[in-house]
């Protein structure tokens, strides 16, 4: 125990306005779904937070009809400048209710309050503000003089950034004049249902946004529904492939944002202390539950030892614990299932001969927690170098030359993001050209902005979200 022990500084859970029961949102109303209710759990305590009514296949049909009716009668006819007013209103309401949303997100997902407060919720609001600006300017977006919406968008989102992924999906869909049926993840439905309240507060016409909690079968029902014009999915590559098979041969437009195994490349002329910060942010932000996490560190051999020493010291200062404590850096793993998956992959790292180092930080005795872990002596042939772990586990590999760095970084079926750390500007540009990744960060990592398109290569999916480019996925072009 140290001499400077930070006293607990918890955010009050009352701010979340947690209710005992939540219901699906269809046609502008909260309705009893006919699916089997699910219980959503606080991963930091394993306590049940609330019971959530779910949709059945017939509810999916009802929701799609509501969305179609809203599209035909109101939303597609409305001038862009009017749609923009609704988006601005939603953005402002997200800001007004930001504390409530942040606390609720941390309770339901397990991420630290400092992240939900300073990153997820503000960025979600920013996406609505940004796309509100596009709503009446679509003819200037480069997609022709009068680009048309597609119709009804079916959207399925993951549990790692429940509200932010919702914003990434709904904001561009609404701005371009589409209506939406969205399924939040099974383990994190709550902020999406508070967002449904926000739609009511904003007096959004009924049926423009429909939110259907449920498991994978409901996602499948949305994807398979005959009257859905566009599917947007963020989640695992495995499910993404299923969706692509389902949609193949239909008229549905599809965008997929899937897994990743990003290379974070540190050259010997990098600003090392900030590179260490970037490595930490790249893999431990949101407990590593990030599709674009910098989970493969490629470090030049000449500085590998120095970087590893600095990295271990820095990682041992990370504070793991109660996600609602303002001083928590690393929160809970979202579910027992995910924790088991992380443990399995870590065991494979041990078995295949990588050197495991674990932060000496105390681990809470309740809840799903996994201490920050760094594997060194990792090689491309090991599972922990190839497979997405989706947890606070970093695999460290070394390289000798820039060409070797490029070869190793690109040697993955994925291609969502990459990081470059060097003080040589020409090398940044050279690397960025060579890396097959949708986003390349230079001397920083995990920076998001609604104006910057985001998406992958190969098994990380296709299509882009955000920016002018991201509008295309929701327009008939």
């Amino acid at each position, binding site marked *: 125990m140290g001499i*400077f022990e930070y006293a607990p*500084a918890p955010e009050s859970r009352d701010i979340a306005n947690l209710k005992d029961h939540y219901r699906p949102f269809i046609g502008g109303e909260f309705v009893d779904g006919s699916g089997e209710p699910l219980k959503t759990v606080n991963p930091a305590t394993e306590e049940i937070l609330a019971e959530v009514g779910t949709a059945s296949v017939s509810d999916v049909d009802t929701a799609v009809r509501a969305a179609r009716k809203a599209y035909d009668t109101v939303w597609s006819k409305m001038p862009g400048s009017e749609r923009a007013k609704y988006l601005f209103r939603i953005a402002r309401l997200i800001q007004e209710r930001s504390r409530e949303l942040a606390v609720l997100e941390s309770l339901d997902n397990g991420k630290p309050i400092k992240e939900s407060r300073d990153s997820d919720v503000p960025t979600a609001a920013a996406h609505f503000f940004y796309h509100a600006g596009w709503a009446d300017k679509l003819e200037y977006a480069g997609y022709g003089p009068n680009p048309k919406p597609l119709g009804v968008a079916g959207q399925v989102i993951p549990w790692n950034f429940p509200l932010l992924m919702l914003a990434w999906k709904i904001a561009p869909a609404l701005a371009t004049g589409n209506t939406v049926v969205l399924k939040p993840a099974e383990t994190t439905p709550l902020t999406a249902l508070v967002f449904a309240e926000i739609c009511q507060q904003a007096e959004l016409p009924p049926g423009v946004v429909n939110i259907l909690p449920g498991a994978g079968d409901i996602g499948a029902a949305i994807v398979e529904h005959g009257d859905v014009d566009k599917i947007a999915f963020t989640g695992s590559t495995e499910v993404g492939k299923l969706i692509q098979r389902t949609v193949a041969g239909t008229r549905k437009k599809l965008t997929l944002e899937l897994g990743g195994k990003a290379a974070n490349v540190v050259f010997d002329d990098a600003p090392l202390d900030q590179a260490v910060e970037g490595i930490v942010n790249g893999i431990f932000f949101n407990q590593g539950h990030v599709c674009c996490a910098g989970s493969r560190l490629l470090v030049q051999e000449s500085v590998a030892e120095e970087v590893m020493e600095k990295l271990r010291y820095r990682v041992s200062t990370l504070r793991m614990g109660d996600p609602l404590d303002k001083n928590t850096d690393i929160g809970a793993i979202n579910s027992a299932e995910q924790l088991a998956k992380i443990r399995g992959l870590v065991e494979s790292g041990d078995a295949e001969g990588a050197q495991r180092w674990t932060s000496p930080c105390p681990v809470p005795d309740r809840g799903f927690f996994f201490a920050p872990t760094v594997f060194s002596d990792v090689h491309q042939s090991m599972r922990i170098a190839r497979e997405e772990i989706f947890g606070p586990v970093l695999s460290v590999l070394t390289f000798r030359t820039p060409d070797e760095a490029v070869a190793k970084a690109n040697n993955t079926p994925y291609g969502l993001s990459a990081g470059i750390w060097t003080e040589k500007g020409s090398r940044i540009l050279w690397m960025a050209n060579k890396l097959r990744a949708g986003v390349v960060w230079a001397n920083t990592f995990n920076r998001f902005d609604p104006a910057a398109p985001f998406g992958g290569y190969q098994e990380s999916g296709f299509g882009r979200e955000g920016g002018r480019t991201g509008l295309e996925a929701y327009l008939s072009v």
Partner: protein
Amino acid sequence: MTTTTSPNAAPDTPAPLADVTRDEASLRRFLHGLPGVDQVGVEQRAAALGTRSIKKDAKRWAIDTAISMVDLTTLEGADTRGKVRGLAAKALRPDPERQDCPRVAAVCVYPDMVEAAVDALKGSAVHVASVATGFPSGRTSREVKLADTRLAVEYGADEVDMVIDRGAFLEGRYMDVFDEIRAIKAASGEAHLKVILETGELATYDNVRRASWLALLAGGDFIKTSTGKVSPAATLPVTHVMLQAVHDWHEQTGELRGVKPAGGIRTAKDAIKYLVAVHEVAGEQWLTPDLFRFGASSLLNDLLLQRRTQVDGHYSGPDYVTVD
């Protein structure tokens, strides 16, 4: 009197780094071979650590620790012996109504005020620090700087706050800067040497890192941000770079050297942000007045007010702390 080479690497330069200061070329290669500091990254990290929420017992501890780290300072042309005696009295009894209030670490004055301070603090554990070397600009000859230092020590200062020659540093004459610090260190004798980098004039974080290492190589016991006479004075990101330097120095040599941000730190809230940085960047070993100080004047009263708020449960207002 300047030389371009040191006769020998001094015995007090730790072995792994002895060769570094052999000549101008080696020193330049070493300083320019240090990893760069990315401005965006270091400022982000400083801002992020600044959001730590320090409450209850942790806040009490931090406030008391910060008080014990204050170098209570007066550096005015208008300083008088009376002013200095008043400051010394405040240093001994920061909050006269609270016996359990810690004392500050030191008072810091101009050389000609040292005697008055020493006299007023006789028999106490409060140190007397003197600025020297043509403070604040340092634009004078080596002889004058050395005489200034000797004078301060003769008058009884047990800590000397020197300024580096920023002109020489910015011209790239690193060996001159190094030699001068060494000479002042020798002239300081037993007194602790704090080396002021005047980071506001160094302009880049890369320069702050190089100047920090230069001062550590030359034997500075402390590296200090600023004179307080140049804006910007102490900032969190600059202090981060300096804390990282003493941390790395310790990793390489096993020696513990201190850091002192000075100028512009006025509130308890800010002081606590600095302590969090000390804790998480350098390490908790540095959370002692032996290795961390605040150069401050008005900060002390805000710390005292916040301390009372913690103890009494309500804020008492500026009329309840003493102003000398």
